């Protein structure tokens, strides 16, 4: 288990208040809640994009919260994906290799593994801005995994996809997470994401984690 403590931040009109939270350090955990419940704030605080002075995050004996953002070694897929539009799919993925100083000899095999797992063979040399929504999402996941993160964050990864693409995308993500055995936190408002991925469910309401029996979620 990785243990998070003092995830507390007051935004004035809204407060995130999670004194303690144990996240499994393997498999997939879903942070689920309605719009405005504070999911994105939790996500940004954990990644380190917003400051949270008292935060502790013990992961395998290391307090990740005390490390600068680049040294936390996290993988992230934003809802908006944020591919680098001027680079090709391959260059997007290779950027993560360069950022993490992955040895040159290991890059090509790692790239091939990602290409195979995420079915990127047809779009690897195309500029990111010309990829379809589904392809962009797969490249974003590949880029997040390329840096060999200790933890993967997925922020509403399926919300930008059409309904018919969503089912396939969920299956692919589930398979890739299992294949790469990387602990993952999925942020979502869609209960179907949680069920399709078979994730452990953590519910968030008004900035607080709530037990299952206090909140009946609309399906």
């Amino acid at each position, binding site marked *: 288990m990785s243990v998070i403590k003092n995830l507390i931040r007051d935004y004035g009109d809204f407060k995130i208040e999670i004194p303690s939270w144990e996240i499994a350090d393997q498999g997939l955990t879903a942070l689920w809640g309605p719009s405005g419940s504070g999911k994105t704030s939790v996500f940004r605080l954990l*990644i*380190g*994009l917003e400051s949270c002075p008292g935060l502790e995050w013990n992961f395998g004996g290391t307090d990740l919260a005390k490390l*600068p*953002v*680049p*040294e*936390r*070694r*996290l*993988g*992230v897929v*934003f809802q*908006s994906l*944020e591919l*680098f*539009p*001027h*680079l090709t799919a391959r260059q997007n993925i290779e*950027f*993560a290799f*360069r*950022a*993490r100083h992955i040895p040159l000899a290991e890059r090509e095999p790692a790239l091939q593994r990602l290409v195979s797992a995420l079915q990127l063979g047809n779009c690897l040399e195309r*500029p990111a*801005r010309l990829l379809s929504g589904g392809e962009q999402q797969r490249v974003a996941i590949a*880029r*997040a995994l390329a*840096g060999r993160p200790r933890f993967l964050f997925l922020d509403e990864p399926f919300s930008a996809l059409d309904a018919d693409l969503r089912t396939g995308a969920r299956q692919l993500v589930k398979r890739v997470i299992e294949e790469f055995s990387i602990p993952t936190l999925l942020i979502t408002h869609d209960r179907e994401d949680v069920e399709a991925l078979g994730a452990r469910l953590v519910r968030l309401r008004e900035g607080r984690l709530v037990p299952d029996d206090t909140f009946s979620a609309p399906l």
Partner: protein
Amino acid sequence: MENHVRTLARLGLGVILICPVFAILFFAHSWSWPDTAALLSVLQSTLSQSIVSAAISLVLGTIGALGLLSFAGQPRYRWFELACLLPGFLPPLLVILPVFRWGSWVGHYPFGWHGIVLVHSLMCIGLVAVAVARLIQSKLGGMIELAWVEGASRWSLIRQGLLGYLRADFLLLGFYLVTLCFSSFAVPLVMGGAQSLTIEVLIYEKIRQGGAWSEAFVLSIIQLVFLFAFSLVLRRGIVVPPRGRSQVRFLSWRLGITVPLAITFLVVVGQVAGLVTGLAQLMAARELLLALPRLIANTMLVGLGAGVVAFLLMNLVAALSPHWGLDRFLVGYSSPSPVITAFAFLLFGFYGYWGSHGAMILGLSLLSLPSLYRLFGRAAILSLGRQVQVARVAGASWSLIFRVIIFPQVRSHFLWLAGLAGFWASGDFALSSIVAESNSTLGLMAKAYMSSYQLELATALSWILLLVSGIIFAVFGGWAHVSHQESYS
């Protein structure tokens, strides 16, 4: 370590931008309060011309906006926008020239307070028209469509929507115009003649004629206090939204477009009138003809140099972004006056051919940086914020992020901005007139002919200036085009 270097670099950039004020502070040695009556008079005159110019620009610009809206959604809308923007983006010299030619109803050289207000208004009305039209489309578009469907009258829309809902935006725009006119130097210098009608010109006169550094320093501090107060109001920043797609013709008034278009027409025709005579005079003016290659070369040097320095400065800003403090500083920061900047370079020992032209290049690029950042550069930098976040989380260093993510994506934007900076710099005659040892550029020479009412020769030179400025802009524009192709091929 990398973060410390970035913090130091940010501080360094701040110091470079405000170094002219430090220079005056260092060399002034003593404080001397200027004559209070003269100070109050010039303050009153500066403020009144700023406020009246802003008010005229707001009223006539809004009328222009209503005219512009009648073409919303049509392909020619973009051309009308460009036509409206032209007087505001041309070097002031080219707007002043038609006023010299046809402004006898305002007075004769020096035109004084009325002339300053007239030129400021001519330069700002088109800008206001474009800004207000876009504000209406983006903020009132849906409301206008709904009101149209429900049968509201145009007057009720203007009263409740335009004057009610957009009141805060109008106030902000008004303050922005007041600030612009308050710190203007080129226009009061030419239109006011020897009269010190604005605080900026008074500082100029104090130093240039009287050598009264200490009084000039106090005056510049007073001016900075005013600009700082304005910047507090403007800290929200002026953001001109993109063109909207709403159906706003219900609010429009087609005739309104004649206001900004008439100004553009006046400015353009002002360049054409007297051109043939001017060229004939130029051919006959042997000395001027012989000096022309040197004037053109110097103007090119200043324009291209200022463009390159502006490009480097914008890239430095991008490399040190995103940073809340830096952004706030650049948004709220008002450049020290051109006069203070120019004299600071003289104090630093920028003399001789290379010194004076170096001062023009550095001074004009420093002065243009806040405008370039606020008007265009900021949006390009901020749009990459999320990509930078992804790259940071992925573990990338700032240098890798700049090289691979930021620079390739902002390069072509910044080259266009560099072209604009070069275009403005090549037409300068304000800062240049202080640091130059002679009329060494086309702008300075044209201003000299204009001030001595040799308008035909000034017109001929202004055409050559326009050609040179256009080449400078085209050089950077071409480079920007190639860069864009490289980045996105």
